[in-house]
């Protein structure tokens, strides 16, 4: 990580908060104080590529739409065909994977933006795997979509080459919404 640019700490903090929430809310109830071992991967933050992404409204809008599309389609497949969440997310991921990167060997800007969105679709598919008890209304899906799109936009150039980044974004979007909702109620 380039430590001279202080803005690089923003994506690093974001991913750190997501991981801490995961350790606290998911791992701690299962294995208790052994969760302290979760500090090991946190030492790895200084070894991973982190780069702050400047907010670009059009790209952010594409990310939010793509994330929402992945999430909505995953939920739709689960409800419509009564499938498992894994099957549904994998199916949506497979469809997203076939979005072309080029058209007739050319790489116009529009196609580049659409193909960039396929990873956001997969991240949205993970968020769509959430149990329906947390989706109290359509607005909850919209809030998670917006949060997920922002998180994806912020982290798109960070934690590259490390598996599980998209899942962390999906988890982050969901857990932030659930935490805020529980705090308010």
């Amino acid at each position, binding site marked *: 990580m380039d430590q001279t640019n202080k803005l690089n700490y923003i994506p690093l903090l974001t991913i750190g908060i997501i991981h801490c929430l*995961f350790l606290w809310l998911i791992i701690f109830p299962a294995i208790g104080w052994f969760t302290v071992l979760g500090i090991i*991967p946190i030492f790895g933050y200084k070894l991973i590529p982190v780069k702050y992404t400047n907010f670009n409204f059009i790209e952010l809008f594409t990310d939010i739409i793509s994330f929402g599309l992945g999430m909505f389609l995953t939920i739709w497949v689960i409800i419509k065909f009564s499938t*498992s969440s894994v099957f549904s997310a994998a199916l949506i991921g497979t469809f997203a994977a076939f979005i072309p990167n080029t058209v007739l060997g050319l790489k116009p800007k529009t196609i580049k933006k659409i193909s960039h969105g396929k990873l956001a679709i*997969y991240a949205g598919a993970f968020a769509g795997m959430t149990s329906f008890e947390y989706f109290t209304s359509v607005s909850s899906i919209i809030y998670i979509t917006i949060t997920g799109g922002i998180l994806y936009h912020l982290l798109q150039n960070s934690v590259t080459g490390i598996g599980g980044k998209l*899942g962390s974004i999906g988890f982050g979007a969901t857990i932030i919404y659930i935490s805020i909702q529980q705090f308010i109620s």
Partner: protein
Amino acid sequence: MTALITIICSITGGLGTFLCTKKLRWHPLKSSAILSLIIATPFEILNLDTYAYIPIIVFGASFVGMSSNKVFNKTQVIIASLLFGGLHFLCASNFNFIGGTLGTTACLSCLSIIVLVNYSKEAKANL
């Protein structure tokens, strides 16, 4: 028996995805999604509820395999996948309610391996 199946599924998911990306030059997203879909489809058709955790583990471990081959080699992917499998084995009861938990576990497994590899290199250099 469950532990053995978890180990096999973790390695299948992680290494399978990694090899599809490396050898077939597929996009990591394509490798992960197609492999998971292939594994999940028979369980979906035959309603094998007793072994419903198998596609979940393969799907989760496939995120480990999505790592770049510039960061990880085959052995490191196998170890990270096993770590993922172990975490899933211990915490599975809390995993099925919030989306992205599998991916976050995979991310933490990968980061742990990066830390271990880095510190073992440093330790070797200091010897």
